[in-house]
């Protein structure tokens, strides 16, 4: 564990190498990134094994001192971040491998890999941080990297504006987090987690203050983890390359928000109000995002809304004292969501870079590995026994039921049903039926390399299928680390040494209920999109207004544009005009006056002696006339 600091350093080295020599390496850049992440992964595994058998390891050194306070930097291997290290390095490594094939036609592949390296470095640094100030530094780096990667194809206007949107929206949360940090430091006098936990548990911080701090910190998580009402950036972030989406949605960026709540959990536990806000935000986000996922036709957007929805689940669990449930779901979700996104990437490559599920279909027989692994991912996220999603979702439902109330539990249950439904809508439309994209290949290929192999979709090479298989295995097995039959090992590991109260566990009937709900959703999707016994437009025709509302994402983008963006732009334009018209105008006026008068009087300077003579005579006359008038000679 003493060497844990190396874990983020490997991707950083890869980033630096690619920064300086990327141009020379070109496609070989991929191997630099893969090697760095593989090393990080090995060290993470070693760190986890050591942590399981040992104690939390902390190393800090003094960073700067002013007056009597000093700030420290360092790293720490706790139970929570040992788990996170594994999740981040596994997903990131597989994304690196997958991108080797996905991005190989892009001539900026070395830039892509250097960003990926920086992204992994930031997230790993965030996870290892022993104090919240260091976390904040890496938190911002993560935001920066996601900005760079979402806008990787910056020449597409949608990608550029999506990157901007992601950056600005998360920035709102970051401001909250920063204010929370300042308040926290003011109260506790230290940024270190251990000091914060101790101060909060001893009641050193007064009640309203704890609530304020918890809510401000939560605002940061809301922005980063795309919770309602700051979720709008995540679907647009789909403009980035698909492996990036997998990385953002599974291991980095959005996971950071949930991790932040996890790591600051004692502060949240100390405030009843904050927990309630967290729980309701999570439940509402889960529900709304799921409803929007029902109607989307872009394969990546469906997955994006499902991510928001699942993040809502995690936040809901954390808000209802289900500490382990939330973080457990964070881990299992990372695996199956990465699997689904990489599967979607594989599909997108196969159908010539199109993302609309209405032009897919019938891929089951054409790409076996992708189809099977995608099915596993879909089953996992729907929560089918015994896949990973089943175990973690069941625990979330348990905590919503036992520590929350009927409303939260109801929302969660309905969301679980919708999750199963939209995932299998996606699955059936993509992989079953007939291939609907054969005709207009030329029209829609998005100019991403002219040598795209046209014609029938077919399975991709090993670089793309290997990560899918690995993730599929993880999506099946990841849930077993917290099996009820063997005494919830993950829970014991995560809660050891922390005073987090009892973790809620559901009874057997809840498991069956959750399974039944998931199965119901799948069955409905099967009836509508495979069997065809219910028309696909059945609900759209029944409630066209609702359908339209969902298709337009509750008009939230429009609302934000009208309420926030337009006025901001208007204020900016006002000041710009003011600057241009008044400030610049004054300076320009002086300049123009000087140059114009110079030019005008310059014209009289024509070298004609007699003109000068006339002017001086006229001047003399004027002087004399003035003198006469002043002396009263003219009466």
């Amino acid at each position, binding site marked *: 564990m003493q060497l844990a600091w190396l874990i983020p350093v490997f991707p950083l080295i890869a980033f630096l190498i690619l920064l300086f020599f990327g141009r020379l390496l070109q496609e070989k850049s991929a191997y630099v990134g893969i090697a760095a992440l593989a090393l990080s992964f090995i060290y993470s595994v070693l760190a986890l094994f050591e942590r399981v058998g040992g104690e939390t390891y902390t190393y800090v050194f003094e960073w700067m001192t002013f007056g009597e306070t000093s700030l420290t930097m360092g790293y720490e291997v706790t139970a929570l971040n040992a788990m996170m290290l594994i999740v981040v390095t596994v997903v990131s490594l597989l994304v690196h491998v997958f991108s080797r094939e996905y991005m190989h036609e892009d001539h900026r592949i070395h830039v892509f890999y250097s960003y990926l390296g920086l992204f992994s470095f930031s997230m790993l640094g965030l996870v290892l941080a022993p104090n919240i100030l260091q976390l904040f530094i890496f938190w911002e780096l993560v935001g920066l990297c996601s900005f760079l990667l979402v806008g990787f194809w910056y020449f597409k206007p949608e990608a550029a504006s999506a990157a901007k949107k992601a950056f600005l929206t998360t920035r709102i949360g970051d401001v909250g987090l920063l204010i929370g940090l300042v308040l926290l430091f003011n109260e506790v006098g230290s940024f270190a987690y251990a000091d914060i936990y101790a101060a909060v548990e001893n009641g050193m911080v007064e009640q309203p203050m704890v609530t304020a701090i918890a809510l401000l910190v939560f605002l940061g998580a809301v922005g980063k983890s795309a919770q309602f009402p700051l979720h709008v950036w995540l679907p647009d972030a789909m403009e980035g390359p698909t492996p990036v989406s997998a990385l953002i949605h599974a291991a980095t960026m959005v996971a950071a928000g949930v991790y932040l709540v996890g790591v600051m959990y004692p502060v949240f536990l100390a405030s009843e109000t904050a927990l309630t806000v967290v729980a309701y935000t999570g439940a509402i986000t889960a529900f709304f995002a799921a409803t929007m996922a029902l109607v989307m036709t872009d394969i990546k957007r469906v997955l994006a809304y499902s991510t928001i929805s699942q993040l809502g689940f995690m936040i809901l669990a954390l808000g209802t004292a289900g500490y382990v449930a939330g973080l457990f779901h964070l881990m299992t979700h990372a695996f199956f969501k990465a699997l689904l996104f990489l599967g979607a990437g594989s599909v997108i490559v196969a159908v010539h870079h199109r993302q609309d599920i209405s032009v897919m279909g019938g891929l089951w027989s054409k790409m076996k590995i992708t189809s099977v692994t995608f099915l596993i991912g879909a089953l996992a996220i729907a929560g089918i026994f015994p896949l990973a999603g089943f175990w973690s979702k069941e625990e979330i439902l348990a905590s919503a039921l036992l520590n929350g109330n009927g409303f939260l539990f109801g929302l969660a249950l309905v969301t679980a049903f919708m999750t199963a439904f939209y995932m299998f809508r996606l699955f059936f439309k993509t992989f079953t039926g007939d291939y609907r994209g054969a005709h207009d290949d030329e029209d829609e290929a998005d100019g991403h390399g002219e040598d795209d192999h046209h014609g029938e979709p077919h399975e991709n090479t090993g670089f793309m299928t290997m990560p899918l298989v690995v993730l599929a295995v993880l999506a099946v097995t990841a849930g077993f680390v917290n099996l009820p039959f063997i005494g919830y090992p993950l829970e014991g590991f995560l809660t050891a040494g922390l005073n987090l109260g009892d973790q809620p566990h559901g009874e057997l009937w809840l498991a069956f209920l959750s399974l039944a709900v998931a199965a119901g959703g799948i069955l409905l999707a099967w009836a509508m999109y495979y069997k065809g016994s219910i028309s696909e437009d059945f609900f759209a025709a029944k409630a066209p207004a609702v359908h339209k509302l969902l298709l337009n994402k509750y008009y939230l983008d429009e609302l934000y544009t009208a309420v926030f963006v337009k006025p901001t732009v208007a204020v900016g334009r006002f000041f710009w005009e003011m600057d241009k018209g008044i400030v610049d105008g004054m300076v320009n006026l002086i300049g123009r006056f000087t140059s114009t008068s110079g030019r005008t009087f*310059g014209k009289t300077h024509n*070298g004609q002696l007699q003109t000068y003579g006339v002017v001086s005579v006229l001047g003399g006359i004027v002087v004399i006339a003035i003198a006469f008038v002043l002396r009263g000679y003219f009466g």
Partner: protein
Amino acid sequence: MTVPISYFLVLAAVLFCIGLYGVLTRRHLVIVLASIELMLNSVNINLVAFSAIGPYADITGQVFSLFVITVAAAEAAVGLAILIALYRNRDSIDVIKHDLLGTDKEKSVSTLQ
């Protein structure tokens, strides 16, 4: 009998204005010089007139006008010499063509030819 001083002054003023007009309008440098002589002479008339019948009549005015005539002669000589030098160098004694001090250098150069 005495002629009123205003007669002399009006004559001098008329002569001065004719001279000034000549200086400012004629293009021929010799005429310009001659016009300057005219202006000097109009001043001389004033001096002599005040010397004879001014309120403080004495010899000073006449002496002064003698100085003016002397200086005018010298000035005419120097002026004509410059005029000849100019003509030798620029092949012209047209006032309009000598505008080297003007801002418009292109035009000045073109007038050299």
